[in-house]
């Protein structure tokens, strides 16, 4: 009934298509992290105007939908003569969206470091950058990692939306394969789900390892 070699053939083609998904994931995640850390720190800035501006960015991107943002960047920006290739549009939309969600996690992480730790660092006469690097950051990242790990999974799932602007990622290729081979619809979608699950799980266990490392010495 279902032939193994046929399934294998579909699987190999889908794995090939998932290269786009994986590179999109990595590039967008790196950019999202940069945005999240900068915004998260700026959300704690002492200048009200800076806080307000960053807060506005965060709330706009959290308050609207990723797909709406993607469409806006891909379909509306060209009217302002900003024409982004599909991959870039996808990276920008995903990074801005998950960067906004993660900024809140970064902010909360830094806030969670007790002020006594900062006083102790001061009493040992650390420079501000040493204080950040050796005392605040290692303690803040421990609080951030579970949240950032969850956001990572959300980001991976979010990359599927780029298929809706026609970028040939795993999802898009699957949909195209299906139209050529309606009888295999079930197999194709199951395999797509399995591949996404595998990618998510790899990143999830990566974050679990990081969490373990950050938790050294804690009960």
């Amino acid at each position, binding site marked *: 009934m279902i032939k193994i070699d046929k399934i294998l053939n579909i699987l190999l083609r889908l794995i090939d298509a998932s290269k786009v998904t994986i590179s999109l994931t990595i590039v967008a995640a790196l950019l999202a992290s940069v945005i999240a850390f900068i915004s998260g720190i700026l959300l704690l800035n002492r200048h009200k105007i800076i806080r307000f501006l960053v807060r506005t960015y965060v*709330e*706009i991107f*959290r*308050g*609207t*939908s*990723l*797909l*709406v*943002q993607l*469409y*806006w960047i891909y*379909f*509306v920006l060209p*009217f*302002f003569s900003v024409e982004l290739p599909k991959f870039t549009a996808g990276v920008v939309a995903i990074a801005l969206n998950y960067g906004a969600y993660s900024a809140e996690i970064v902010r909360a992480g830094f806030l969670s470091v007790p002020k006594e730790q900062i006083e102790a660092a001061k009493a040992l006469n650390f420079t501000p950058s040493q204080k950040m690097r050796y005392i605040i950051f290692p303690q803040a990242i421990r609080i951030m990692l579970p949240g950032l790990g969850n956001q990572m*999974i959300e980001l*991976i*799932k*979010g*990359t*599927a*939306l780029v*298929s*809706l602007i026609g970028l040939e990622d795993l*999802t898009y290729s*699957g*949909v195209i394969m*299906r139209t050529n081979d309606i009888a295999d*619809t*079930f197999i194709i*979608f*199951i395999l*797509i*789900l399995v591949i*996404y*699950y595998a990618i*998510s*799980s790899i990143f*999830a266990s990566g974050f679990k390892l990081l969490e373990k490392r950050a938790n050294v010495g804690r009960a």
Partner: protein
Amino acid sequence: MWSWSFTFKVLPKLLSAAKITFIATILGFLLASILGLVWTFLKRAKIHWISSSATAIVEFIRRTPLLIQLFFLYYTLPSFNIRLPALTVGIIGLGLHYSTYLSEVYRAGIEAVEKEQWEAAKSLNFTPYQTWTLVILPQAIPPIIPMMGNYLITLFKETPLLAAISVVELLQQAKIIGSEYFQYLEVFTLVGIIFFIFSYPSSLLVQYLEIKLKNPAEKRM
């Protein structure tokens, strides 16, 4: 660049499509709330294969994109002779996906109920059903209402994905109008604004509830 006359021309069309968005949100969330509770109980089941397969299924749904799940339901259900309108498929997809998140929320709420409460229920000789409905759930649910609210907002913002299975909700309507007039700025911006007007105040309300609900607990201590 921005045309106000076009804006006012298309706004009623968008708002009427927003109805579909709200229906999908509310019914999807309702389904997610019920199904989430089912997962929570299955994961707590004493029979190992039930609890472990429930855990595995929940994990699988959580780690795979809603979009593919929608495609999967939309394209494969008919081959099992289940023919449903696209909106219904969309609601099922949303409900199924978010049920996995809500089951985590319920779990957190249930685990927060002190174990003495279970012992008290036992000492009063309640049946398991009575224990759950009279003692545990009434204590587990109120503290998690803000978290549930957060997922309601998140689910609302995911409804544009239904466009992919041909449900004409807000975003799909905007896309149709946009391609018709080749004028995307107003429609997509309006969609963004509509989403923002509903989700931002709701998230403020959730934050308020979080603070409100935290305080009485502290007072009790």
